[in-house]
């Protein structure tokens, strides 16, 4: 191979930074929107090159293993398709006067910084560096959530900022505690923060200290995953920011935070004296699922509706990883990928719909399949997929989670199924009016680009019907790592 894995890693970190610098200096949104797409596309290609690395990258700062490749490729892919969607979305915001050219320049630069921050968090071998990456991505999204500068947007951004900072503060304290636990075993210096070193020596760590550290890390990063009762920022941030940001928040940032939790879960599992992290994650996951399922019923804002649906699905994923074991981990990974693709696809559709109708109120959006067949039917497909009905990929992953749970903990499985069905009911209740009611509001045709949306739903459909054997083998391998 011409490109080795290590240049791939460097590329996915450097391209966003360079692109951000150029975008910050470029006037004119048309060219910067295209450059944004180009940079995101190049980052995606660079991430694919990681598959072809001869030897694994393993430095004290960066590393690549089977687990994070899955995350990186998913991350950069959704980052790329969202940039395509953003290019067709954001021009309209300029026309309608919600954004000025200066803010748009800022928006594109921040988009790349955010992608870079997430890639840094995913490739970091150093737990301090991982924290820096997540913090960077969080701060940029805070700025973008508040970009419209309306009352609601500012409140959402402020809430997100305060809660996000608290979460990040707790996570840093947990990181310091992990270093303290490693200190007597690994010794002073950089070694105590390198994840691969930590895992190999974790068995000798003081169990009590690492337990406390994990609690801090779970609460800290869990805030960013949006687990109930730490989710308060999530619906506001999704509803008030630009829709491309809602798509990357749901599709990417939540996953990155979950990835951090998983890394520390592996660390904890390597220590025989430590508490089992599983039950904690199962509880948080189940609480999030049930809470979000009930909350879905009385939503009036369409973006807020799908934000709660994200909490629900992050709950299911956390639950699956908490159950552990090869099947549940496999299901969790698959569900994560499917949820990212489906939910960002839905947000693409919702973004165009909200622009045409000029509102996000569910009550004012009616009969989409008649007035805008492409958008309306895409929304129907998206909701059917996210509700977990066959033949889509989400059905398969949810089925795996439920069936593997039934074999081990039937009571939990019943609660899980109850939550999923509850959410399904709520989504369909809203979908009826949205897609098939008496048409209201503007019926002007949309000049939207449907490609990203169709690609996402297409992939979810294909995954539901046929999963390539290599992908299955890959996920199975990762499920083994997760233990």
């Amino acid at each position, binding site marked *: 191979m011409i490109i080795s894995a290590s240049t791939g890693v460097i590329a996915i970190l450097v391209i966003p930074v360079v692109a951000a610098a150029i975008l910050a200096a470029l006037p004119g949104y048309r060219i910067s929107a295209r450059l944004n797409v180009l940079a995101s596309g190049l980052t995606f290609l660079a991430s694919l090159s990681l598959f072809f690395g001869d030897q694994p990258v393993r430095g004290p700062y960066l590393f690549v293993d089977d687990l994070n490749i899955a995350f990186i490729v998913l991350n950069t892919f959704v980052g790329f398709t969202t940039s395509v969607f953003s290019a067709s979305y954001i021009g309209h915001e300029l026309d309608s006067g919600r954004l000025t050219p200066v803010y748009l320049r800022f928006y594109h630069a921040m988009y790349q910084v955010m992608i870079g921050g997430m890639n840094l968090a995913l490739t970091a071998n150093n737990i301090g560096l991982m924290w820096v990456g997540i913090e960077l991505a969080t701060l940029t999204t805070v700025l973008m959530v508040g970009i419209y500068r309306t009352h609601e947007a*500012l409140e959402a951004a402020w809430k997100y900022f305060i809660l996000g900072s608290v979460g990040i503060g707790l996570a840093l304290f947990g990181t310091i505690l992990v270093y303290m636990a490693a200190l007597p075993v690994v010794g002073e210096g950089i070694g105590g923060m390198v994840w691969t070193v930590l895992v190999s020596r974790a068995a000798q760590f003081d169990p009590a200290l690492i337990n406390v550290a994990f609690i801090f890390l779970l609460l800290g990063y869990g805030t960013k995953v949006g687990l109930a009762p730490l989710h308060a920022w999530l619906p506001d941030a999704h509803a008030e920011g630009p829709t491309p940001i809602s798509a990357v928040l749901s599709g990417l940032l939540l996953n990155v935070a979950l990835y951090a939790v998983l890394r520390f879960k592996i660390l904890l599992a390597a220590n025989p004296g430590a508490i089992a992290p599983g039950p904690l994650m199962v509880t948080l996951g189940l609480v999030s699922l049930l809470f979000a399922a009930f909350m879905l019923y009385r939503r009036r804002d369409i973006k807020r509706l799908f934000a709660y649906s994200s909490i629900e699905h992050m709950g299911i994923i956390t639950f699956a990883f908490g159950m552990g074991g090869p099947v549940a981990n496999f299901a969790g990974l698959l569900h994560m990928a499917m949820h990212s693709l489906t939910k960002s696809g839905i947000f693409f559709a919702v973004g165009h719909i909200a622009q045409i109708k000029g509102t996000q109120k569910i009550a004012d959006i009616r009969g989409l399949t008649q007035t805008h067949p492409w958008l309306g039917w895409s929304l129907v497909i998206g909701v059917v997929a996210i509700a977990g009905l066959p033949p889509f990929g989400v059905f398969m992953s949810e089925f795996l989670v439920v069936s593997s749970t039934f074999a081990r903990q039937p009571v939990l499985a019943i609660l899980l199924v109850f939550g999923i069905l509850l959410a399904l009911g709520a989504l369909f209740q809203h979908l009826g009016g949205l897609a098939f009611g008496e048409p209201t509001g503007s019926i002007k045709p949309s000049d939207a680009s449907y490609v990203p949306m169709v690609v996402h739903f297409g992939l979810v459909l294909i995954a539901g019907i046929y999963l390539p054997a290599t992908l299955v083998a890959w996920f199975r391998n990762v499920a083994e790592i997760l233990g």
Partner: protein
Amino acid sequence: MAYGLSFDVAHLLAGSLVLVSFLMITQHRLYSLLNAFALQAVLLSASVAWQAYVQHAPHLYVTAFIALVFKAIIVPVGLHRIIQRLGIHREIETVIGSGITMLVGMGLVALSMTVMLKVTPEADPLAREDLAFALSVVLLGLLMMVSRRNAVSQVVGFMSLENGLVLAAAGARGMPLVVEISVAFSVLIAFFVIGVFLFRIRERFDTVDVQALDRFRGERR
């Protein structure tokens, strides 16, 4: 005198950080709150410098210097000017009374002592006490963030929380420099973000009372 002078001084400094935290959670005037924060930053700087001396870790002096210049001088002065410009130097409201805040704060300190001292019996006593005090400062900062509704005092609460984190990082022997820089850097970014927000909020609402924002929250009907 079980551990000697180095331990006593570190203990004294870290303990005073917690005391100043108590001062802050009960402080009702914005200016005095800022002064208390500046005092805490000075103490933090001294504490980190002492750790640098004890651990023979010169890079910690940098962290101490940053704490002194940035947190004890630049940030309080900047916030002072913001408060002046916004004209909000009158008394600030707390969501819960100071008596209850004080009691909750004492409970939090007791909690962090119990938790940290119990789980670190083998760690070096200096780091151990530092960590327990640091957690107290972090939790008191959190308490301040939830018990205030004024945006400026929430920001101060957040920075006080960061002080606790720096104290913990300095106490962890030989922790790599990358983290300390990142902590200082994150504070800088955080301040930038907050500054932007404060000005925007000022622009739109003519108040920095976060409850004024609450009117717009939630579902739009």
